[in-house]
């Protein structure tokens, strides 16, 4: 299953546009949501191949979104991969909780768009 559709939940306009621009250029279909509530609704309504999830978000934090999608008895997005993208590293517990439900945890400042694309390509490979 190749990754084709991507949902970006990111409140920083500069960063959001940067990802949209380079990922679109790389051939992905992108939806971008700025706040946590909209992000969660979008993730529920449409089966994306990948969600890029920020942690510090207005309305609803990334941790809550992930919990709502994957924390319950049923995985609401079984066919979706999730990459956490954050600049504010969490303390161990919440980070552990997130890593358990996500496919990757990346520091935004360390990931340039081209590196992000190579990470996404890597995600594709084992599947």
């Amino acid at each position, binding site marked *: 299953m190749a990754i084709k559709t991507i949902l970006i939940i990111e409140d*920083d306009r*500069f*960063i959001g546009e*940067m*990802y949209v*621009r*380079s990922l679109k250029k790389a051939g992905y279909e992108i939806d971008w949501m700025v706040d946590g509530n909209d992000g969660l609704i979008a993730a529920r309504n449409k089966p994306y191949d990948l969600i890029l999830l920020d942690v510090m978000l207005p309305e609803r934090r990334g941790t809550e979104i992930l919990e709502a999608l994957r924390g319950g008895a049923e995985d609401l997005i079984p066919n979706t991969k999730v990459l956490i993208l954050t*600049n*504010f*590293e969490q*303390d*161990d517990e919440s980070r*552990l909780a997130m890593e358990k439900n996500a496919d990757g945890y990346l*520091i*935004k*400042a*360390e*990931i*340039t*768009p*081209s*590196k992000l694309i190579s990470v996404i390509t890597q995600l594709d490979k084992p599947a």
Partner: protein
Amino acid sequence: MAVTEPQKFAKDFWPYFNKVVTTVIVFSQLIILVTTAAILFMFNFLSTNLLAFICILAAQLVLGIVSSIFLYKLAAQPLKDLLAAIIHISGEPTATTPPNPNDERFDKSGFKDVLQTIYELASKDNTPAGVISSTPANGAVVAPTAQVAIPTTSPTAMIEAALNETSCGFVVMNHDRKITFSNKAAPINIDAQGVTSLSLMFNGQETLDAWLEDCDKNAVHAERTWSRIPNKLPEEEDRRFFDVIASYDKGAESEIVLTLIDRTSLYAVGEQELDFIAFAAHELRGPITVIRGYLDVLEDELKDVLKDDQHELFRRLTVSANRLSGYINNILNTSRYDRRHLNLRLGETTVTEVYDTIRDDMDLRASAQNRLLTVNIPADLPKIAGDPASLSEVFGNLIDNAIKYSNEGGSINVGASTKGDLVELTIEDHGIGMPASVIGNLFQKFYRSHRSRETVAGTGIGLYISKAIVESHGGTISVRSEEGRGSTFIVSLPTFQSVADKLKAGDNSNKGLIDQGSGWIKNHSMYRG
């Protein structure tokens, strides 16, 4: 404190007094003897009646000495008993039993009342009623034998009560490192078996245990101070910070004495500052993400438009943004480390894998600054137990330093090899090097040599955090350097196999690792191997 110099005790008075009196008796008898002999000689006894002469002198000598000593003993006995009673109530270490007022001889002579008065005075003076549960920690004071009027209070109890009043912690240990005394303020743990242990979290490898081990080997008397040592992990309740002063006195009953000064309120401000630094550094990451990201995007989109020299400008921008990002990671990790928050996730990896994550960045940095970076890491090195993100930070710091402290066009060689249970990474430059006097301080926080402060920019935390990270892996970092010739930094990391073996030996819990003494993998419990 252990008594190191001979000290005057009340008990020392009697032997001294005894000696003086005996000497005086002997001398005075000799003088009497000589005088008698002279008188007898004048009356011609020596020549006319030699036998009488000798008999008189002998009788004089023997009777004189015996009677003097008898009189002396009789007169001095009450003094001796008084002294014994005083020695006892002073709590001095002694092997004699205190005089018992109920003894028949005291009763007869009336000395009983004197003794009782002394004991009563002592018990009135000493302590408020009720706090007399005297349990001398080291048994130095002979406990009074069960006798009626002998008080149980001693200055030891008084001092113990006083020590429990202060906010300073005191801990005394014997040669076997068993805690023989600790006051109320001391941060100690008593486990289910009733074993008392210190609860202090020393930094890295500079632990009390390591120092004591060193003392056992090399020292007779030693003293050392640590500052800002917490007793608990962050976020644990009632976490306190201590400055710890340890004194070591080989062979003494109280071989180790720790004084712990509670500095929690003083350092609390520092904690907040560290929080602030961490917060500020996180904030900086936002703009950096944008700068690095847009440079990446732009360079790609403009690659056909830009002229060569413009490409070079772009590369410089990228290199600078990458370095900035590295420095922010240094700051964040230093703040984490200082708050005991640095969590490493050790996993099976290789030096090559770690280096690959920064290879492009390092190549770019070296070429943008005109250095020849050659990397020669053999592919068949054993795997290491490492946290790739932190280790790449260490390698990046060392290569960044090599670039900084070498000259335009200089070569930097990165190599790796196996040394027993360790994999060694070496970073060698042929730059300005440094004198031996600098090396000793090199890994200290904020340390910058006089010269580097003038000529090269930097914060002085790169090597500090690098050392912390490497030691948290159970490894070591060291440096060889010659002024004017360059420096070689050596990072030694344990192989994955050796760490896994230790883990197995520790019943699959991290306890075994923690007990290795280097404090590594201390506050994280996920060893993913």
